[in-house]
């Protein structure tokens, strides 16, 4: 591996880590606060990607403009899903929510498949494919913008959790549900809000992804798995951990992908199993649940 190739791989990893952090943050929030491993998280990414695609194709909106619309739509969907479905069984044993979100994933992905077919889609604009050169390294503008927007959204979410009343209610519910209830927090609503934020972040990530990679309804599955690995790598309970996990994962993924593409998933899962056995609370994280 020569220095240029190494540099390009590193740049790609950094550019990838933003979106990964965005996907994983929503996943981590839902997991950390409610102890739900949301297997439908990837389905929300898919919905985000398709929404952007159709707003761009049919309405003619710039894909970047669609991001707030997509996030709002996914916010509403997430809120409804949590209130109507998940809140009904959330105190049942773990397997219940696990399978429920799994059923949801099958449902959403196949509905998307039914209506939009499995064709590979991509969002193409005037500026697709343009980029700048940094010496021998190439940095596409869209990926750079996606990194910026991702980091902005992560920062906004972190600030929301830290300093708003609702954000504090979310964190309090995650720490001790009974104590939170005693102080007047409406737990069911807070749960719905948490899930809605998670879905909304996934939608935003899907929106960004639609501009970067060609996608079909199966796009989401790998992102659910990646989000899980990132959460395990970083540990739950802190926004910083998620970013750390995402960067770590992006580097492993990009490097293994460049060297041993056919073994990348086996490798990732091998590392994951090893890590789970040796250090289940993640590299930096503390235990919040499980």
């Amino acid at each position: 591996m020569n220095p240029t190739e190494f540099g390009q791989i590193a740049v790609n990893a950094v550019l990838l880590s933003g979106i990964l952090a965005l996907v994983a943050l929503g996943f981590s929030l839902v997991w950390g606060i409610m102890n739900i491993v949301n297997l439908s998280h990837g389905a929300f990414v898919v919905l985000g990607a398709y929404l952007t695609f159709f707003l761009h194709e049919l309405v003619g909106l710039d894909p970047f403009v669609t991001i707030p619309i997509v996030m709002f739509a996914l916010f509403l969907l997430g809120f409804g899903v949590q209130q109507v479905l998940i809140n009904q069984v959330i105190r049942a044993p773990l397997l219940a929510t696990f399978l429920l979100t799994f059923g949801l994933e099958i449902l959403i992905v196949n509905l998307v498949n039914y209506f939009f077919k499995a064709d590979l889609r991509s969002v193409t604009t005037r500026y697709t494919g343009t980029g700048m050169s940094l010496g021998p390294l190439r940095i596409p503008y869209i990926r750079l913008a996606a990194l910026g927007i991702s980091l902005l959204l992560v920062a906004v979410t972190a600030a929301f959790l830290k300093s708003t009343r609702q954000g504090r209610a979310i964190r309090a519910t995650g720490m001790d549900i009974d104590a939170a209830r005693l102080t007047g927090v409406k737990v069911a609503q807070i749960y719905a809000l948490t899930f809605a934020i998670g879905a909304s972040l996934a939608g935003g990530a899907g929106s960004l992804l639609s501009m970067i990679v060609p996608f079909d309804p199966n796009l989401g599955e790998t992102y659910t798995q990646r989000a899980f690995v990132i959460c395990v790598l970083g540990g739950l309970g802190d926004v910083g951990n998620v970013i750390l996990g995402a960067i770590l994962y992006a580097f492993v993924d990009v490097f293994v992908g460049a060297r041993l593409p056919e073994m990348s998933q086996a490798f990732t899962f091998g590392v994951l199993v090893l890590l789970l056995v040796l250090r289940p609370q993640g590299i930096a994280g503390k235990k919040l649940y499980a």
Partner: protein
Amino acid sequence: MPERRGLRVGQWIGLAATAVLLVGLLILPKFQSQYDLLTYTRFLVLALMAQGWNLIGGYTGYAAFGNVAFFGLGAYTTGLLMLSKLQVPFFPALFCGALLAGLIAALIGLPVLRLKGHYFAIATLGVAEAFRQIADTWDSVTQGSTGIDLPVRTEGEFFYYSALAFVVLGVLVTIALRRSKIGYAWVAIRGDQDAARMLGINTTAMKVLAFAFSAMFAAIAGGLTAYQNIHVTPGDFFKIEYTLQMIIATIIGGTGTILGPVLGAGVYQLLSNYVWTRFLELHPTVLGLIIILFIIFLPRGLMPVLTGSIEVARGRRRFRLQALLANVRAHRVT
């Protein structure tokens, strides 16, 4: 005393129903076309996998999401042994496959079963994915993604009766295990692992045993399917759909019950066929919906409904639609 007599009558009904069902299943091939027989065989193979999953997922309460790994392992071991220079006959090859799967499951289980909850689920999912990639890349043995071709055997009756025999054997093994110390240990682990350990149960050994048993069931199902399908590829025999089917079947029937997985597999196959013929393209969507509805309204499956309706029919209990809301009432958050 009425209670004791009631129990006996209940057992008698259950036994009679099982006997009638068994005789029905035994003479069934006489009245079916080869194609329909294939559907019934598929149901029995699914029942076998579900019985296996029930041991780890139902009794022990560990949500294994990677049992397809052992399904594929059984398929490949059976196939490769039959194709090897020794030309091992089918049944010995099948048993070798099951034994190997049990052994490997025990080895994998030792580290992985230390994990709990979601972590265990995802780790097993990862194991299955790793198995698929190994089968895909280990060209010299598995011939990679091209796959292997087993000797041809076409009589549908052979596969039907073999599968039926294994399902019956599976029921007997489940009953025996459930009534032994092992079965009680599994249920104790499901209830509270730390408490079980304090009672002197070797939880690690018991969990590994459950995992190994479930792997053996899956491997036999895999070997049967391989011999029947002839062509074995990593993509077909390591696909996550099999894991899902066994979990869904067990949940529909009732986790942690003896006949639940068999009942669930039957209902699943019926539903699946119905949906398949009516709305081909919406097939997975409907399955997703079924999972959601069962988890919300009938998380314990159809077995309790069945025993409940027998009680209602005998006038022991009154019919209440509200029973459907019991789960939501108990587990919702407000």
